[in-house]
């Protein structure tokens, strides 16, 4: 939006809390993300990092605090939720492609139904995106006929087709075989360098080192430590961060 004030964060979270029954998954998360920033969130399993990224597009509902995305506050208002969702793309650990649709149909469905694009326009953009993620020749196959790495690249193209301002990645490489991780990370690195605002939950420290502007270490529903990759890797302040990094980087 043109009237946006300079330096107003595109994602702004204040004191975000979330419970699953008695269990408190998020305990007061504060985070600001500027336009064009790449954020990496890491931490042990069960630390609330996936829950947090899913509150950003309301797949999970936060119960206390405020989340403002590009000037729109996430409340119970369905119109706000839909506006936020059409401005944020999400990539999942399990890809979640639609198995009954071809790759091209997966990509063009939302632009045609939500943005009301014509088929030709959607197909053209779809093909451009497939070229960008490196698999234009797979356009008319079904997801089940692709490898995991190809499926995840289709998922990225599908999310990009809605021309989002923010991309959310929830452990995008955790379900992939080692030799396929690189092809997905390459796409993500290219995306990061193109200036996309990204929030990535991942343990791929190489990716973080290469493109992250800021890293957040989550544990037990809280942000334990945050900083630039240099700060986090070279001089982590907290013991828990040191311990976790030593475990992740040891091999």
């Amino acid at each position, binding site marked *: 939006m043109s009237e946006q004030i300079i330096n107003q964060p595109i994602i702004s979270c204040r004191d975000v809390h979330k419970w699953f029954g008695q269990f408190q998954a998020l305990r007061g998360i504060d985070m600001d993300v500027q336009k064009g920033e790449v954020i990496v969130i890491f931490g042990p399993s069960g630390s609330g990092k996936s829950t947090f990224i899913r509150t950003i*597009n309301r*797949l999970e509902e936060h119960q206390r605090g405020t989340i403002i995305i590009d000037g729109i506050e996430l409340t119970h208002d369905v119109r706000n939720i*839909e506006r936020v*969702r*059409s401005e*944020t*793309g*999400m990539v*999942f650990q*399990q890809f*979640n*492609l*639609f*198995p*009954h649709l*071809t790759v091209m149909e997966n990509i063009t*469905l*939302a632009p045609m*139904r*939500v943005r009301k694009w014509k088929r030709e326009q959607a197909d053209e953009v779809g093909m451009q995106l497939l070229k960008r993620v490196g698999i234009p020749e797979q356009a008319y*196959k*079904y*997801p*089940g*006929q692709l490898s995991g790495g190809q499926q995840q690249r289709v998922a990225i193209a*599908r*999310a990009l087709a*809605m021309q989002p301002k923010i991309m959310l990645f929830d452990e995008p490489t955790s379900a992939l075989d080692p030799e396929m991780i690189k092809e997905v990370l390459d796409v993500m690195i290219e995306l990061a360098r193109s200036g996309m605002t990204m929030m990535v939950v991942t343990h791929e420290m190489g990716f973080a080192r290469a493109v992250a502007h800021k890293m957040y270490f989550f544990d037990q529903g809280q942000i334990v430590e945050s900083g630039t990759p240099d700060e986090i890797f070279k001089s982590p302040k907290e013991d828990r961060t040191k311990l976790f990094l030593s475990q992740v980087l040891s091999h």
Partner: protein
Amino acid sequence: MTTATVDRKILPPPIERYTVLGWVYKNLFSTWYDALLTLGSATVLYLVFAPMIGWAFTTAKWEVINANLRLLMIGQYPPSELWRIWACLYIAAIILGVSWGMWVRGSGGVGIALIVAPFFFMLFPSLELNDRLNLGGIVIAALAGFFIGRARGKSLSRLTTLSWIVYFPLVIFLVRGLNEEKQFFGVIGSNFWGGLLLTFLLTVVGIVFSFPFGVLLALGRRSSLTFVKMFCIIFIEVIRGVPFITILFMSQLVLPLFLPAGLTLDRVIRAMAGVIIFSAAYLAENVRGGLQAIPKGQFEAAEALGLNGFQTTIYIILPQALRAVIPILVGQFISLFKDTSLVAIVGLYDLLGISRSLLAQPDFIGRQPEVYMFISAIYWMFSYVMSYISQRLEVRMGVGER
């Protein structure tokens, strides 16, 4: 032989070849207890079927079928309007032929059976010449469809699917007619529908109307709106907890009480209402099974893309859920086809009802075995074709599944 360090040549898989005798030996007599079981089963089969076949070809008096063939097939449907039934059959033959040529391609046992069936009916001496010509014409139409389907391939896919969807409402329209006053293509009331025709119409109407109704009930049952959900649960559970025959009696006797004054429905329409209600409740539960099989990630992916609830249901959830339950739905439709024979109890002349009334005539007393054998064969033939088609459909729909 090459050494282990060099890549070995890629070899074709070993071919297993048997002579007929070899096959018989391997599969039927390979051990002494195999031989014993083979001989035992052969004896049982012989003891059961030999008398039956002997009866069918010697003692049985098939004249009762021959004399009443028209009645059994179409009941009291006016002979002058028979062309409409033929039209339905011709259209079915063409669409079936195209589907067969396009999706199944090979001839296949059932494909041949479908071609042979009309010739079987030609055997009946009571048929007139034009009936025979029409039966032959249907075979030609089916074959023409087959070759068109095979030649044009998948380019007709969408059109054929659409034709099937349009076909069933079209049948109802053709059989019933259009205009109250006009002579040509006038309305033929449902009290004239009978025999196999009525059985078919009950099934077709049951399927066509219970399908959307059942899908809505299934979706409603998962709705977050309390009243919608309550209504759907109560409807489904009440109907499923009551025998079909009770629903048929209720639809005959109770339904008229709820209709506004002046509006009367004839008995066939009332029976159809019963069939639809019954079928919809079961269909809803089957579809719900399919809906529950959809992983949560599918909903999340659709939501994350900004699709609203309606779009998610139409484009993502239902196509997958329905595809998953096709075998179950076809099974349900086959049951429905056979269950419609219960309308004979409430006094309609479907295939079973008209048989019962035939057998009550003095001329045909004691001809129960022939008549019931004949209509069993008819029920079986159509059920088996439906079942076979659904198997092919499953194989075809399997393409691109996860």
